[in-house]
C-alpha cells in the first residue's frame, strides 16, 4: 500500500495541523497567538489530576482533564488582564507557567514515586503510533483506527468555523460592532477557547506541547503575508497545514528523526517563502511594486 507508513503519518499530521491552522488564523487576528502555548502547557496539571482519579495512563479521561485545564487557563488569563493593570501577554505568562509548575508539584504530591508520569511525555509528542494501529476498512482502504479521533476533531472544527464564520470574524475584527449587533464577545471568546483547548490537547499527543504552538501560528502567519482577505487567509492556512504535513514527513525521513520537528521545519520554510515572495506583503513583491511606482 502506497500510504504505508508515511502516507498515514502525513494524514495524521494534516488532521492535527488543519484545525490548529484555522483556529490559529483567528488567534493571530485577535493577537492571542500565545494562548495556544498557555493551553498546551497548563494541560499537565489537568492530566495529573485526571490520572490520580482514574489511575490509567491511556484513559481518555486524561484528555478531558487536559482540556478542562486548558479552558481554566484561558479563564485565568482573561481575569488577570481584565481585573488588573497587567496586559494580556504578561497575564498569559503568569497563568500558564504557574499552572505548569502546579502540575509538577501535583506529580510529586498526588502520585509520589508511585508512577512514572513524566513531564516530558506532555512536552514531546509522537505521530508514529498510526503506523502500528489496528486498521479499519473505510472507503475501500485499510485505515489505522487512531487516525479517526484526529480526523473527527478536524472535521468538527472545520464545520464549526464554517457555521460561525460570520460571528467569529466580526468579533475578531471589531468586538464593539459585534456586541452592538447583539453577539456577546465574551461567549464567542470562551467558545473559541474551549474548542481551542480540545484541538490543542488532541494535537499535543501527536506533536507535543511545544511544537503545537508552531502549528497554531505558522499557517496563519504565512497566510497573513499572502492575503488580506479573511476567507482566503483561512484557505491558505489550510494549504499551509497540508504542505507542511507532507513535506514535514519527507524531511523527517531525510534526517531520520521526529516527524513533529520535520513538520515545523517545513512550516517555517513556507513562512520564510511567504515573507520573501508573498503576494500581499512579500519583500520582493513590495520591492517590485516600489520600482514600478517609481518608473510610473
Amino acid at each position: 500500500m502506497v500510504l504505508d507508513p508515511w502516507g498515514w503519518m502525513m494524514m495524521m499530521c494534516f488532521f492535527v495541523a488543519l484545525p490548529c491552522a484555522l483556529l490559529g488564523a483567528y488567534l493571530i487576528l485577535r493577537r492571542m497567538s500565545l494562548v495556544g502555548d498557555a493551553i498546551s502547557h497548563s494541560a499537565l496539571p489537568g492530566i495529573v489530576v485526571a490520572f490520580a482519579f482514574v489511575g490509567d495512563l491511556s484513559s481518555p479521561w486524561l484528555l478531558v482533564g487536559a482540556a478542562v485545564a486548558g479552558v481554566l487557563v484561558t479563564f485565568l488569563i482573561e481575569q488577570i488582564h481584565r481585573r488588573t493593570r497587567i496586559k494580556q501577554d504578561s497575564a498569559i505568562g503568569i497563568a500558564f507557567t504557574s499552572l505548569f509548575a502546579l502540575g509538577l508539584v501535583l506529580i510529586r504530591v498526588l502520585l509520589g514515586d508511585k508512577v512514572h508520569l513524566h513531564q516530558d511525555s506532555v512536552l514531546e509528542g509522537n505521530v508514529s503510533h498510526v503506523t502500528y494501529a489496528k486498521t479499519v476498512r473505510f472507503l475501500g482502504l485499510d485505515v489505522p483506527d487512531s487516525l479517526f479521533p484526529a480526523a473527527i476533531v478536524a472535521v468538527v472544527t472545520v464545520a464549526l468555523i464554517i457555521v460561525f464564520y460570520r460571528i467569529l470574524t466580526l468579533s475578531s475584527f471589531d468586538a464593539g460592532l459585534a456586541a452592538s449587533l447583539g453577539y456577546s464577545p465574551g461567549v464567542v471568546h470562551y467558545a473559541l477557547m474551549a474548542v481551542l483547548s480540545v484541538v490543542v490537547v488532541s494535537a499535543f499527543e501527536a506533536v507535543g506541547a511545544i511544537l503545537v504552538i508552531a502549528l497554531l501560528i505558522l499557517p496563519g502567519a504565512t497566510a497573513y503575508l499572502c492575503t488580506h482577505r479573511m476567507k482566503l487567509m483561512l484557505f491558505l492556512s489550510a494549504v499551509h497545514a497540508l504542505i507542511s504535513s507532507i513535506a514535514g514527513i519527507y524531511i523527517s525521513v531525510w534526517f531520520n528523526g521526529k516527524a513533529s520537528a520535520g513538520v515545523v521545519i517545513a512550516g517555517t520554510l513556507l513562512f520564510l517563502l511567504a515573507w520573501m515572495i508573498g503576494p500581499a506583503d512579500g519583500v520582493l513583491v513590495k520591492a517590485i511594486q516600489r520600482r514600478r511606482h517609481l518608473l510610473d
Partner: protein
Amino acid sequence: MKICFCLLGLILLSLIGCNNNSLDEIWESTETFESGGKMRVATTTTIVRDLVRVIGGDEVDVFGLMGEGIDPHSYIERPTDMIALKSADVIFYSGLHLEEKLQENLEKLDDSYAVTAGIAKSELIIPEDKYEAYADPHVWGDPELWGHTIKVVVDVLVAKDAKNADLYKARGVTHLAEMLELKSWAKNRLSEVPVEHRILVTSHDAFMYYAKAFGFEVKAIDGLAPGDKGGPKKVKELVNFIQEKKLKMIFPESAANSKGISAIAKDAGVAVSAHELFADATGKLGVMESVDGETYDVGSYIGMIKHNINAIVEGLK
C-alpha cells in the same frame, strides 16, 4: 495570485513524487525471507540484539533499533526503525514495560515477542511502592534469569524457520550453559568483595535482580527509569547512607547522565568509578576488554556482565 497557486501545486506534486528510503540501509541482503533470503529480525535494546545474534547466528539478519548509550525507557523510533519494524519477519523486544512508549506500539504488531515472557511471574521483582503492578524490567542483572529468555527466541525462530531448527536449538542449549557458567563465574569473582562492602550505588534502579542474585544491596539516585528523579530529600538520604556504610566507590552508568552521581560522590566524599556500568544497554560491539588475562567483547551480553562485575570487584574489594 494564480502564479502563487501554481507554485504551491508544483511543490505539492514534487513532494508526493519523492521516493521512500530503501531497505538496503537496514538489511544485509535485498532478498526477503519468503524469496529465499535470511529471516529479518528487528530487536530493540542491544541486550536483546545480542541474544538474537547468538541464537540466530549467520542464519538470521538482525537489526537493532537502539544503539549503545541509548536509554530504552525514553526511546522513540526513528523513520528507519519504522521501516525496519514494518519489513521485519520477527520482532523481539525486552518487555515488562522497559521500552515504555515503543512497547505499546510493538504490542500491536503481529510477530512481535517480548523475550521476558519466558520468565515466570514469581521470579519477577515487583517494587512495593509502585502505583501499578509493574515489575522491574531489568531482569538481565541475573544471568540465570535472563537465560529463561533463550527459550522464547529459540521457539519463535524454530517455528518461523524450520529448516534451521536444529541450529537454533543447539545454540540455545549452549547459550543457556554459558549463562549458568557466567553466573557462577560472577559469584566466584564477587566473593573477593567483603560482605560488608557489598553495596552498589548507581544512577538509576537497574540492578535489583543483580542484587538479588549476588547478595548485594543497591541504592540509586533515580527510580526505575533515568529521569524518574528523586527529590533533594532522597539525595540527602543517599549521601548519609554512603557515609554511614563507609563505601569506597559509587558507579556511573553508560546510558545515564553521570552528573547526579558525581555530585553525590562529592557530597559524600566517595570515589566515582572510572568504569561506567552497562545498565540498560551493552557497550559498543567489537570493543574488546581484557581483565586478568581474560578478553571479552563489551558489546555482547556476556562481555557486558563481565565488565560490570570486574568494575564492581575492582572498586569495592
